[in-house]
């Protein structure tokens, strides 16, 4: 059994995993790129080793080097976090081949769920409903896809077999535009994943993105920790998640939870994973995909279940039995997470880099912040723009929302632009409060700076503050430009003064 874990990641998630190791009495080992020498994960770890230059291709994606470092420092296991190498079956295999433990599923399960078309076929065979599409057809040519498309019906989605993150994805409204969009999707998929294979899926309108957290041990136990509502997305990137989902009731949770466990069992799943579903307005649900790793949004589940998922991951990897049975799992209260990105919500969410000059975290009852930044740390252009996760718990959804509102107001990050104002606007929108949203809400029905109550008063205060700032500038510059108040030049005056004091 291992007692030292190498964390093959950076940023907030590396810090999160270090915390779990510490609490379990396990020694955390960090790896870092040139840009991350001063990162929090390096400062918090017991040991830290240099990986390579800043670009992830030369550092955090260097599986060979990471395995080498793990062997050299005698770590017994590797935790991949999310992103980077987390869903690469070849890396998981490399780790196993080096006699190390990969804290995650078996390589075969990563491979099965990584190929989206195979994943759909596998879970469909196990009786899990999938979004209607070209599942189980293998790799298709353009001609075959065009022939099948009318049977699925429009609108539909072209998706990359190796896909993720919205790359290689295209919406198709009519058969006429299909050939052009197919070419474009294949080109993008080829560029992003080195694999141009695509499949079709019916585009479900008014649907919600709801996912189930799974835990599975080596002893055949598979449980779910309830759902997370992740419909608030922009360009297929999640921005705000909550647990439970306002659309869920106990009956549906029980049924979908069982289905999620069944999907995991279909690939002989081990460790923590997430089954994503689309749920339409009639509460019909369809399997979307499985994420074979720890999710960014795992804290909302931790807040409502009280289970430390990362510690559970490590225990499972050590061969232990799950500490809870399905009956033990109760969702208590409500949790919301806002992903704080270094992006300018007022300028098309353009990423923002630079030195963090101030960072004041919100605290107080029911607040959790997972972050890897601090004042004096530079946000480099090399990695993801996620810099912090703000999570709030409340007894009810209403309390969680109000708590999030005050926490967002308290949070001060200066030096880079952040999407905190975006979250403040989302939280304040009536549709969000009423739970009236789907996956297209952010892109189609939401705008920043909608006029609301008290807006006029705020405008007045803003005008006053701008004027006071201007006035200060004014005074400063007029001191610079102001001519001598004496009638003679300062030099002359100084000369006289010196003579006088001689």
């Amino acid at each position: 059994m291992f007692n030292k874990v190498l964390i093959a990641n950076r940023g907030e998630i590396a810090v999160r995993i270090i915390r779990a190791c510490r609490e379990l009495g396990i020694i955390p080992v960090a790896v870092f790129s040139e840009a991350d020498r001063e990162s929090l994960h390096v400062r918090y770890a017991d040991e830290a080793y240099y990986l390579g230059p800043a670009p992830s291709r030369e550092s955090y994606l260097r599986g060979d080097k990471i395995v080498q470092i793990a062997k050299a420092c005698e770590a017994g296991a590797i935790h991949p976090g999310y992103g980077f190498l987390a869903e690469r079956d070849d890396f998981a295999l490399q780790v196993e081949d080096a006699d190390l433990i990969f804290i995650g599923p078996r390589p075969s399960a990563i491979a099965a769920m990584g190929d989206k078309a195979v994943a759909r076929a596998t879970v469909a065979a196990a009786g899990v409903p999938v979004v209607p599409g070209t599942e189980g057809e293998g790799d298709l040519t353009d001609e075959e896809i065009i022939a099948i498309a009318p049977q699925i019906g429009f609108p539909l989605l072209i998706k990359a077999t190796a896909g993720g993150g919205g790359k290689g994805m295209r919406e198709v409204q009519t058969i006429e535009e299909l050939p052009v969009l197919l070419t474009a999707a294949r080109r993008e998929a080829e560029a992003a994943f080195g694999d141009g294979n695509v499949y079709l899926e019916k585009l479900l309108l008014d649907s919600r993105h709801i996912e189930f957290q799974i835990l599975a041990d080596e002893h055949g136990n598979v449980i779910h920790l309830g759902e997370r509502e992740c419909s608030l997305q922009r360009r297929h990137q999640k921005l705000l998640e909550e647990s439970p989902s306002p659309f869920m009731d106990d009956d549906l949770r029980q049924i979908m939870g069982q289905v999620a466990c069944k999907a995991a069992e279909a690939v002989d799943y081990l460790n923590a994973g997430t089954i994503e579903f689309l749920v339409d307005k009639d509460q019909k649900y369809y399997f979307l995909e499985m994420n074979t790793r720890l999710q960014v949004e795992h804290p909302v589940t931790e807040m409502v279940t009280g289970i430390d998922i990362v510690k559970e991951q490590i225990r499972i990897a050590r061969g232990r039995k799950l500490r809870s049975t399905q009956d033990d799992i109760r969702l208590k209260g409500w949790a919301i997470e806002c992903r704080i990105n270094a992006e300018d919500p007022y300028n098309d969410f353009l990423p923002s880099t630079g030195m963090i000059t101030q960072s004041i975290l919100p605290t107080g009852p029911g607040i959790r912040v997972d972050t890897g930044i601090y004042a004096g740390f530079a946000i480099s252009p090399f990695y993801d723009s996620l810099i912090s996760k703000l999570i709030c718990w409340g007894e009810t959804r209403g309390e969680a929302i109000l708590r999030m509102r005050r926490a967002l107001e308290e949070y001060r990050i200066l030096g880079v632009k952040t999407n905190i104002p975006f979250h403040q606007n989302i939280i304040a929108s009536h549709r969000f409060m009423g739970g009236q949203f789907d996956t297209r809400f952010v892109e189609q029905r939401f705008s920043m700076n909608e006029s609301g109550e008290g807006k006029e008063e705020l405008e007045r205060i803003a005008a006053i503050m701008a004027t006071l700032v201007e006035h200060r500038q004014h005074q400063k510059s007029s001191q610079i430009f102001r001519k001598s108040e004496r009638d003679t030049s300062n030099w002359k005056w100084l000369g006289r003064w010196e003579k006088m004091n001689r």
Partner: protein
Amino acid sequence: MKYVASLGDQEVEIEINGEDEIIVDGEHYAIDFHSIAGQPIYSLLINGRSYEALVQPSDEGLEVLLQGQLFLICVDDERQRRLRQTSGPQLLERGEFHMKSPMPGLIISVNVREGQKVSKGDRLIILESMKMQNELKSPRDGIIRSLRIKSGDNVEQNQVLMTVG
């Protein structure tokens, strides 16, 4: 000192006379205004109410981020207001343009000579007024047709300084 803060098509008149009082559209307010920890973040107590905002300059004015809302605000004092009115949007793209002095003052320097080609935005004259040096920029491309002042001249408000054609 009197200012006009504009936000879109709204205008607020603000008079600042001391450190602890301002007059907004004729109404008096007690204020206490601090910048915090050397950052562009400001704390305002106004008639007992507390506000905090990030205030940063941008190309078009000052950006104020307050309670999750971003406001773009242009602040002019009387002098700048007159400056703006002179070089404002009323000028034509064709024909001769007579640059007039927006305020009484002293010509500090003249950066062009007659017959010289200039581009929009070129600095033509530095005019000192109200103890401040103001750059007068060319409102458009053209040629300096006639120059009616030289450095050291005192000029009156609205006096024609040069003609750009």
